[in-house]
């Protein structure tokens, strides 16, 4: 890595580091809950290392504990992760030209935090060279992934629940809010977020968490239409 790339790597690391305060309790909690469900320490860590997607791991765990059939466990947990296909698509314009072996690795570590922090950065600074975008992406994931592995392990070993008075569960929605709030830079972004909220309430009863996917698609379509409309208006003004 060049000096510049190293700088950008640490910039990504810094920009994503506030999320440590969320990743630590969330991964500790997973370790504790998984041990309570009867998994051994190795199984707990293996699951976190292979999947790295907390929400779907909790889903899988509770369905496994309920003795649900394997395909039900998989379907329900994968539905939770389906949003990442959209992240994958959204990263193509920025990181698609990276070498295949790096894209394989990028896919393995793609989580909400890295997607949101990195894509927000790339939108604001589109002229960033590819090598720096890659360095930034890996910097932002390092600070999330390593605590994720370590604290799942710690949670599994210590096995002590976090005091309920702390409402650690609320850290998850707060984390997602912290991810999208800085994205609300334009009218189209704000309208998109608004549609996403309304649609997710409307689609709440849709099974398998697919309501989230439907709400997201609707919000994306509406926000894109807002941008097209703004462009047409700007053109009319110019001509």
């Amino acid at each position, binding site marked *: 890595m060049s000096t510049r790339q190293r700088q950008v790597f640490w910039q990504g690391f810094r920009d994503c580091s*506030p999320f440590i305060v969320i990743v630590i309790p969330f991964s500790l909690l997973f370790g504790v809950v998984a041990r309570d469900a009867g998994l051994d320490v190795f199984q707990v860590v293996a699951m976190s290392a292979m999947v790295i997607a907390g929400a779907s791991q909790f889903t*899988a765990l509770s369905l496994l504990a309920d003795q649900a059939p*394997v395909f039900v*466990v998989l379907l329900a947990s994968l539905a939770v992760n389906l949003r990442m296909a959209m992240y994958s698509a959204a990263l193509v*314009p920025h990181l698609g030209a990276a070498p295949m072996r790096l894209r394989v690795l990028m896919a393995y570590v793609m989580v909400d935090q890295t997607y949101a922090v990195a894509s927000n950065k790339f939108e604001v600074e589109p002229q960033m060279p590819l090598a720096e975008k890659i360095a930034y992406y890996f910097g932002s994931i390092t600070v999330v992934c390593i605590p994720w592995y370590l604290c799942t392990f710690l949670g599994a070993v210590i096995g002590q629940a976090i005091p309920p008075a702390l*409402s650690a569960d609320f850290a998850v929605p*707060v984390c997602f809010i912290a991810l*999208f709030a800085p994205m609300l830079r334009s009218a189209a972004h704000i309208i998109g977020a608004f549609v996403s909220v309304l649609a997710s*309430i409307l689609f709440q009863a849709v099974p398998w968490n697919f309501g989230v996917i439907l709400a997201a698609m609707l919000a994306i379509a509406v926000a894109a239409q807002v941008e097209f409309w703004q462009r047409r208006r700007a053109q009319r003004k110019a001509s």
Partner: protein
Amino acid sequence: MIDTGTFWLVTILLGVLTWLIRFSFLGLLGGRELPDWLLVHLRYVGVGVLPAMVVPMVLWPAATGGAADPMRIFAAAAALYAGWRFGVIAALAAGMMTLWLLQALTG
């Protein structure tokens, strides 16, 4: 008890299939130039997906058995405003502190 064989089957399949979901577009489209209309849509993935994930967790939290909790809704609104106005750290701090403060005040 979770059966060991079932656990490994689920974990390995979940790991592989989740990786495939993540790899999908980034892996297969690669460095191809995407049409402008698609790029415009992709810009809004974050604001499309993330709020939809948040809403059920705030309105019907598992911790209260799915009953709406005005303190959580207020704390979420505080996080949103702080995040929009000041950024990530402010959102995290405002969200958790507001909830703890309200819980402490209402005993």
